[in-house]
């Protein structure tokens, strides 16, 4: 056999020289990334629409005057405390999710199950908090297409009061946090399905816990969106 190899064959080892995916990720994981990219566009459009409404309004209700309560505990005078709790719950559930992925790399089934259950609990806690906040706002009179009769407490000064801005705020708030909450709910459902699969030993048989990474990507994305919703609805 001739040991001579033509130089053009020797070069075919770089990522873009063909024969294999230059991205070097499994198909499903790459598709999850592209789905999340499209979802990022959807959320950006909603948030940018919110920004456009807000920039085009002379006045806007103050977030720290609207979000004053911790439902069931403090009725008034605790600005942004409840949303702070929600934010930390979601960050923590993101942390437990990476820990599940890390355990999956080590093929440690029991640890994966534990961290996945923690993530699901975090998701349910967040959804519960959101339900409390929605019902609290609804009792105050906020909903799609309706606002409270007395708006004075939501603006810095009496001259600022604007029913149009308040209505826009209410519509955008329920639409955007609702769409995000729907994503959290889907994430929790997917996490439960994956946890059941882990318990059944599906991924152990398959020899890889890559599926945990894929649902992990989705779950982190939900956390990522919340980071932006939190900043633009509650802080700015």
């Amino acid at each position, binding site marked *: 056999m001739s040991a001579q190899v033509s130089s053009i064959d020797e070069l075919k080892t770089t990522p873009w020289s063909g024969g294999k995916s*230059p991205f070097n990720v499994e198909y499903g994981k790459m598709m999850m990334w*592209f789905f999340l990219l499209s979802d990022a566009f959807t959320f950006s459009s909603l948030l940018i629409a919110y920004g*456009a409404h807000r920039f085009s309004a002379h006045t806007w209700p103050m977030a720290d005057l609207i979000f004053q309560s911790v439902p069931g505990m403090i009725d008034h005078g605790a600005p*942004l405390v409840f949303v702070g709790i929600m934010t*930390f719950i979601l960050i923590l559930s*993101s942390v437990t999710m990476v820990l599940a992925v890390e355990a999956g790399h080590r093929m440690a089934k029991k640890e994966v199950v534990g961290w996945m259950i923690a993530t699901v609990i975090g998701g349910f806690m967040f959804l519960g908090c959101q339900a409390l906040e929605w019902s609290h706002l609804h009792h105050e009179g906020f909903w799609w297409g309706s606002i409270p009769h007395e708006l004075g407490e939501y603006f810095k000064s009496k001259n600022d009061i604007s029913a149009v801005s308040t209505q826009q705020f209410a519509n955008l708030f329920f639409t955007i946090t609702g769409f995000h909450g729907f994503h959290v709910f889907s994430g929790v459902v997917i996490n439960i399905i994956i946890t059941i699969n882990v318990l059944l030993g599906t991924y152990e048989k398959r020899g890889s816990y890559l599926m945990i990474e894929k649902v992990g990507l989705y779950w*982190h994305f939900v956390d990522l969106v919340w980071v932006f919703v939190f900043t633009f609805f509650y*802080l700015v």
Partner: protein
Amino acid sequence: MSSQHTEELHHDDHHGEGMTKGRILKVAGILSAITAVEFFIALYLVPHDIMPLHIANPIYIVLTLFKAFYIVAFFMHLKFERIGLMLAIIVPILFIIGLILVLTNESHYWIDLRG
């Protein structure tokens, strides 16, 4: 021998070098700390008139982008993926900046219309 070989392949396929437990906790600490700073600004500095809103708002946005970087780079593992995948995800995001510029411009026109 053979199982060791497949393990190495597995390792190579999934870029397992990325996240150790220590690193995960470090990133979690950074995310919590940034959130805590945001709350400190929103609940203490702004209400006590130590920091005006027009300075606080850009700070919130920069801190948010930092958090987004840490979540995407480390939790979503993008920092350890091939450059091709990174660019395939990051470059289209730049279109969003275009939409932000267009709609902030448009909203200033709307405010003129309203008078």
